[in-house]
């Protein structure tokens, strides 16, 4: 093995940093929405809120290469006049979606439809709502197959919205980002590293891998080095173990 190389080496830390950087645009977008929505009111009319959220999220869902596949705001109970539950959520254009068909424009998700009622009833216990509420931090849920909307393998990013520190949460701003998009940004760098790598989430589920025996969606087992991705519940495993189960 050559000890010294003239080529610039891609380190594991570079890969971890690239993953963090690839989420920066998304977090900046959510942060902007959060500031817009934390307008000082402790309660809001549904039509006003919907119009406000729609104006914010549509640009991020449409266009040539949209950042998100879905985005919106989920209100805390009581924030929207007379409503225990209020979802203001839009989806980007869909092609051949088995649930929603195809559409060339962004569409609002109708959470009043029966298929969603069970899901919506328990939303306060769901990871993407509960974690930002209890930690007051941005959270990344997933990857998981979104069976309710896009039927794609996605992450859900959520950020708590509060008027000020210590005040009750008004809700969460959120966005869905596809695993495919993250891969297109960081896989080339992962492939340039001199050892096999796998990006995993907090339960060691594989998101991106440069070892074909360790595939996306599997749970990795690992005994070697790893580098955390700053600000994300992810880390990069170096030389992930071949998996005993597939």
């Amino acid at each position, binding site marked *: 093995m050559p000890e010294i190389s003239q080529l610039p080496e891609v380190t594991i830390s570079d890969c971890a940093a690239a993953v963090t950087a690839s989420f920066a645009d998304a977090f900046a977008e959510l942060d902007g929405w959060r500031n817009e929505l934390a307008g000082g009111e402790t309660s809001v009319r549904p039509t006003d809120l919907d119009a406000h959220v729609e104006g914010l999220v549509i640009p991020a869902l449409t266009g040539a290469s949209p950042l998100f596949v879905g985005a919106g705001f989920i209100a805390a109970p009581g924030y929207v006049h007379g409503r225990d539950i209020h979802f203001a959520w839009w989806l980007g254009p869909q092609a051949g979606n088995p649930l929603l*068909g195809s559409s060339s424009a962004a569409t609002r998700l109708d959470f009043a439809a029966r298929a969603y009622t069970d899901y919506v009833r328990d939303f306060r216990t769901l990871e993407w709502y509960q974690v930002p509420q209890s930690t007051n931090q941005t959270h990344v849920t997933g990857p998981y*197959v979104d069976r309710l909307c896009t039927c794609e393998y996605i992450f859900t990013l959520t950020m708590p919205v509060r008027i000020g520190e210590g005040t009750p949460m008004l809700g969460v701003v959120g966005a869905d980002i596809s695993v495919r998009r993250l891969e297109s940004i960081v896989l080339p760098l992962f492939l340039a590293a001199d050892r096999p790598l796998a990006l995993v989430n907090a339960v060691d589920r594989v998101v991106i891998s440069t070892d074909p025996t360790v595939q996306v*969606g599997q749970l990795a087992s690992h005994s070697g080095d790893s580098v955390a991705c700053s600000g994300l519940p992810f880390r990069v495993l170096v030389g992930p173990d071949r998996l005993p189960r597939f």
Partner: protein
Amino acid sequence: MEAHNRPGAREAIFAQLVDAGRTEQVTIRLTDAIILGVLAPDERLPSESDLARRFGVALITVREGLAVLRDAGLVETRRGRGGGSFVMKADAPHSTLVQARLHGLAQVDLSDMAVHFATIVEGCAQRAALRASEPDSDRLDLWLRGADFATVAGARTNAGGFYLELAVLSQSARLVRELIRLQAEFGPLLLLGMTDARARRSLLASNQAIAGAVRANDAAAARQFATEQVRSLAEWLLNAKARVERGGAWDA
């Protein structure tokens, strides 16, 4: 060691898309859902334009399909604010329509649909067991504990819901999509036997066994339980078909 290319996989790419008889497909899909109890009386269907988008058909096709359902007394159209197409409350269960539906389907097709459905559900269960994390297993258990399998309507809804949970745990978007399509086509028929209290109890026990195998990461057991579950549902369906063909009632 034979290495020549067989035509199957290549030709399948260009296989005909489902196109013929679209009005009939819309009619069958909605009729099954109504007579087999997946859509409840007084439930409002999505708007005509929404149905057209979801089914991927023209608006006129949806209108024709709804007209057939109206003539059959399965839906009614209400005008004005809050209007739309609503599932009619049946005076009696739709037994005659269920009889006709079972009579109209060949045994060979019912068996074949069950094979297709079983293959997908087995794959979902197997992959779910391989890929579920501990929090995933906790959520699956919680879901199952909260799901009603005691009533007919509950069992029909939640049987399909459990398959979907397994598909999600497989981490495969394709399996989720395929399962949704198959359930739309065959789910209501396959769950015909949920009128039978013993079948409901047995389905719940089977789901608990699958969830246990998922938690234990025992893929072979999860797969086996799924095989047995779909086989037992298919047997109920084929028995009902045989009763109809002998001139009896499907749920006798």
